Each structure stands twice: as C-alpha cells, then as structure tokens.
C-alpha cells in the first residue's frame, strides 16, 4: 500500500500552528531566512526551474518557466496568489488557509524575493470567510514580527501582502479572470497574449500562482532540489529527439470525495495509480467502481478499465484527461452517469461568464439536452443509418451494419464540440472554460453511451450494471489513443 508523505500538510494538525510562535517552532520562516541569506534571487528562480515544480492550480504549467517569462526591468511587478478554489471536487487550499496560513505567507515571501516583487494580492473566494480571517490574522502577526512590511529583517526588502475577497464567481479562478476581478471589474477572462507574466494586473507584469504551488517553495529552498526531485516520476518527453526529461516531481494534495469510505485530502507523491488512491482513501464505498473523475469536474471521466492510470500531469494528459487541480471524485455502481452529467452541466451553465457566444449559449443548450434526456424526453429517430467504423478491410468506412439514430446524442456531441473541440483541442472561446464544458460532456457520452441510449429508449433514467454501461475499450476511441509514458531513467 502506498504511504502518505506529508510535507505541505505535515504540521497541519498541530494545535495553534496558525500562530507565529508555534509555526516558528516547526522551522517556520527559516526557509525564507535561508533564501535571503544564502541565495541570490536568480538562484531561487533556478532552483524552482530545476525542481520541475508544475503549477498545482490546474494547467500544470512549469512554475520556473512561467517565472522566466517575467521581464525583470518593468516595475512594479505583482504576485497574485490564486485562492479562488471553486473547482468541484477540490478542497485542499481551504485547509492550508484555515489551519496553516503562515506556510502560505512564507511561500509568498520566497516568491517575492526571487522575482523582486513588493506587492502580493491573495485572491480568496468569497465563501472562505474563515480562511480569510485566519490569513488576515497571520498577515497581521507577520507584520508585527517584522517578516512583512518595510526593510524585512534588515535586508532592505519591502513586501506587502493584501487579501482580496472574491464574490462567488467560478470563472475568477481563471488567471486573467482573476486579474480582471482584482481590478474591480466583472471577472471576464482576457485574450492571451499578452500573458499575465508580461501584462497582468494594472497593466504590469504579474505572477499568478496557486496556493499549493507557493506552499511548495519553502520545502524546495529548505531541503534542496535533489531531495525534491526524488519524489514523483520523471518521464521521457519523446516529442523531442533525443527525449527530454518531463518531471512530475513533488507531492500533490489529492482531494478525494464521492463514494469512498474516507474522503479527504491525502498528500502523496505524484504518480500513484487511481486504484491505489482509492485504497488509500479507505477503499470504495459500494461494490465496484463505475467511474472516476481525476481532476475536478472539468476533467474527462475515467472508466473502470482505466483505473491503472497514474495520477500525474503527464500520464493523465496522455490518457486524454487531466490532473487539473487534483480533485478526484469516485462513483460507484449505483450512480447514473446521465444524472451526474446533468449536475455538472447545470454547474457550467450557471458559471459561464457570458463573454463568448459559443459558451454563453452553448452551455445552457448542453444542459437542456441532458435535462431532456434525464426527463425521459430524449429524441430518437425512427430511421437507421449505415454504421461507420473499422471495416473488414481494416480501413475506416462502411461496416455494412446499420445503427439507430439517437438525435439528441448527436446534437449533444455536436454542440459541445462547437464550444470547444475535444479531438483537436481547439476552443472557440477566450478562455479554457469552453474545453472544461466539452470535456465532461463528450467524454461521459463516449465512454458511457449505453446509459444515455437506455435513458432515451426507456423514457426514464436507467442505471445499468457497470459492465453494460461502459463502452468496452476496443470500441472506445479515447482508450485506444491513450499512451503510457516511459520513465526517463528507463531509456
């Protein structure tokens, strides 16, 4: 059985760790002191680059690379800490904010030192009232102890941290939406480029980082790059010749919820498999796994055939899904996939910011189609059509068989693919919200088509047994296309 490795969460349950004095007893702020006494800012940036740390907020973009895009000659430069945790299934940042806010402050200090930043805004979602209260108290304490403010520890560094409350909009978790919202506007994402690293909040270079990413920094500085890279797999990126290392290093705060016996946050090395994680979380609640959402509700769903998929950035991308923010939702055999999709589509229809037409009109349309199917009014044609697929000669073409036409399922896939095309990975919207809608819609449909068809045929929601509800791997295009990466050391 895989062991938990608590690093970010190590002292989470220590009583009063949210106070400066107790945090100090557990090496608090020593990593920051080490950074300012032993290293130059550029050394820190290089360490982060070498550590292979990938952004934990969702996109999984290399943090070191992101920092390298920030022009050093334009001042002021801002840091925005993204604590707008709203992806369904994700709840790890909440515990950091509520229980160990000084760790986040230390991470922010290290980032500010490395990038020469003087002002940080922590964008906390409006519902996190306790988290904001705890962080505000911790910031106040840090000012009093001389770790924030002017001339920190006599080094001449000036760093200020301010908290900024959101007001309940999911889209403000998108980095440019967050920036707009921080500027006091509607949280509608901006076109990229220019990227925030060049032109972000108030028109200045801005580093946007997730809470979890920043909390990794003290440990990278404190324990060194070598220690950090031992955790998690490093794959070979075979797109380059010769292959380059693709690190998935460090631990991840996996948030597991749904049908498991002990839902919660588990800190584990990246790269364990789906079934191992379910085991760590006390095992499945129910008889068998029907489906697993691996990275928050926007991630394409995994079937029980895919439980051997490793939960890290590279493996999940190659399995045509994503790790996202690490919110894993498990569903057992009693769950109806159409019903689950309806719930998720209601969420997206509600949260679309309304800026781009395909998303503004497409998301309610998708929701309405799924609602119609769930209500038993799904549309099916009385006619049949030739079935296309791999024909006898081994080529794509007419198989000689016929298939029934489920109009609503064709429509569902077509509308979703016109918000963002999941096959070509192109989206007709400004931000990636579009793909966050299409991904679940299309993947649920393609992987659990029998359950959708049954709902239309029977005129009501029918929960099929797992084996019948799931499209078998040989007919599942996404499953066929998946690719399991090789470890770099094995080459």
């Amino acid at each position: 059985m895989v062991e938990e490795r608590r690093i970010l969460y190590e002292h989470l349950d220590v009583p009063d760790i949210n106070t400066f004095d107790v945090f100090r007893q557990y090496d608090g702020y020593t990593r920051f002191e080490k950074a300012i006494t032993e290293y130059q800012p550029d050394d820190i940036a290089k360490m982060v680059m070498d550590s292979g740390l990938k952004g934990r907020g969702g996109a999984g973009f290399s943090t070191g690379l992101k920092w390298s895009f920030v022009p050093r000659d334009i001042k002021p430069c801002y840091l925005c800490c993204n604590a707008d945790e709203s992806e369904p299934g994700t709840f790890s940042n909440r515990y950091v904010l509520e229980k160990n806010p000084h760790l986040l402050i230390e991470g922010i200090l290290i980032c500010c030192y490395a990038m020469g930043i003087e002002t940080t805004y922590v964008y906390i979602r409006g519902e996190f009232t306790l988290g904001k209260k705890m962080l505000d108290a911790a910031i106040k304490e840090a000012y009093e102890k001389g770790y924030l403010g002017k001339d920190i520890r006599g080094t001449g560094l000036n760093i200020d941290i301010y908290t900024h409350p959101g007001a309940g909009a999911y889209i403000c978790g998108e980095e440019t939406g967050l920036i707009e919202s921080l500027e006091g506007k509607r949280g509608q994402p901006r076109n990229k480029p220019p990227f925030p690293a060049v032109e972000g909040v108030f028109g200045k270079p801005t580093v946007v980082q997730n809470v979890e990413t920043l909390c990794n920094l003290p440990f990278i500085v404190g324990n060194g790059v070598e220690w950090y890279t031992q955790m998690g797999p490093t794959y070979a990126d075979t797109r380059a010749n010769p292959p380059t290392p693709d690190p998935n290093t460090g631990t991840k705060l996996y948030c597991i919820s749904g049908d498991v016996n002990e839902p919660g946050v588990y800190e584990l090395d990246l790269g364990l498999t789906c079934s191992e994680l379910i085991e760590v979380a006390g095992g499945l609640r129910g008889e068998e796994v029907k489906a697993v959402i691996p990275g928050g509700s926007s991630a394409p769903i995994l079937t029980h055939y895919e439980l051997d998929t490793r939960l890290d950035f590279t493996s999940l991308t190659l399995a045509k899904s994503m790790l996202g923010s690490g919110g894993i939702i498990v569903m057992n055999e009693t769950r109806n996939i159409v019903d689950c999709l309806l719930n998720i589509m209601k969420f997206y229809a509600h949260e679309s910011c309304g800026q781009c037409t395909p998303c503004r009109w497409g998301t309610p349309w998708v929701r309405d189609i799924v609602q119609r199917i769930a209500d038993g009014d799904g549309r099916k044609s009385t006619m049949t059509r030739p079935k296309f697929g791999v024909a006898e000669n081994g080529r794509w073409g007419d198989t000689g068989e016929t298939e029934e036409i489920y109009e609503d399922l064709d429509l569902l896939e077509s509308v979703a693919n016109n918000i963002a095309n999941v096959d070509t990975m192109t989206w007709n919207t400004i931000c990636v919200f579009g793909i966050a809608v299409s991904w679940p819609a299309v993947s649920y449909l393609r992987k659990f088509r029998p359950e959708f068809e049954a709902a239309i045929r029977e005129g009501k929601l029918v929960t099929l047994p797992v084996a019948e509800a799931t499209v078998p791997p040989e007919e599942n295009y996404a499953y066929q296309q998946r690719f399991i990466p090789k470890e770099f050391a094995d080459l």
Partner: protein
Amino acid sequence: MSDELIQIETPFAFNEENQREFDALIGRYPVKEAAMLPTLHLAQRQAGYITPAVMKYVAEQLEVSVMKVKDVVTFYPMFFEEPVGEYVIRVCHTLPCALRDCKGVLDHLKTKLDTDVAAETNLAKGTTPDGKFTLMKVECLASCDVAPVIMVNDDLHKNLTPEKIDEIIDNL
C-alpha cells in the same frame, strides 16, 4: 448620465467603523476602482443588500460611474439586489454533495422552514415571511470531503443529517 435615472429613496453612507475599514482598503491598490469587491462586501454587510443608494455611494467613493458598480454587482452571485433574510442558508448542490444526498438536505430545509428555494432573480421566493431565513442553492463550496454541506451566513456546517440540520436551525 445614469446617475440621475436612479431613484434614491434613503441615502447610504458608511458608518464610522466601516469608513475606517474602507480607508484602509483604498490604500492597498494603485487605482481606486480595484477596491470594488471588498467595498461592496462592506456595504452589503452594513445595508443588508445592495440598494441603488449603495451603488451610488460606492461609485462616488471609488470615482467610477454607477453603471460600472451595477455591472459588477450583477456579475457576482454573492451580491444581493433584493432584501434577504437575517440568515442566508446556502446549500451546496454540486456533484460531490449530490453524491452524498444534498437533495435530502434541501428538501428537509424546505419543509423545516416552510419555504421554497430562492431563484437568482427572485430572492423573495426563498425568504420566509418573517424575514428570518433565505434558502438558496449554490455551487461547490469546496468542502467535498465533508459533504453534504451548507453555509449559514459565514459559518460552514459539515456532514449534515436531518437531526444536525434541526439542531443548527433551532439554535439560530
């Protein structure tokens, strides 16, 4: 231009404490407009909901047009443009909570409070006649491990059962 079109019934101004907090807020940003969300939160806490008078006052304080304030208020679900009850009960109904029977929680609250669920544009629908409670559905509250959850004003309540809900409501 839009300022004259807004009917102001009772003017609004920050009380002393909120004024102090607002003065501290405004210094944090290089432009005043950026203090919009925290200022609206402050104003809503004082006034109960965002009235036209509040919008006008906030616009004056931040030196932007009233229309810009209205623009922001209509975008964010946490700002109310209608009166709400003393206790706002937010019931999470996104997938992880749905897998743990949030519908039962909602139904129980509906019978207990004898009210419907508020619609986004009709908060009165979910408000009890005595003005004590407003019941509304919200999207993910980021506490999926302790689902189902509700928020009563600023407090989160976890792992709910009908008995727990009764206890929470009766203690208010």
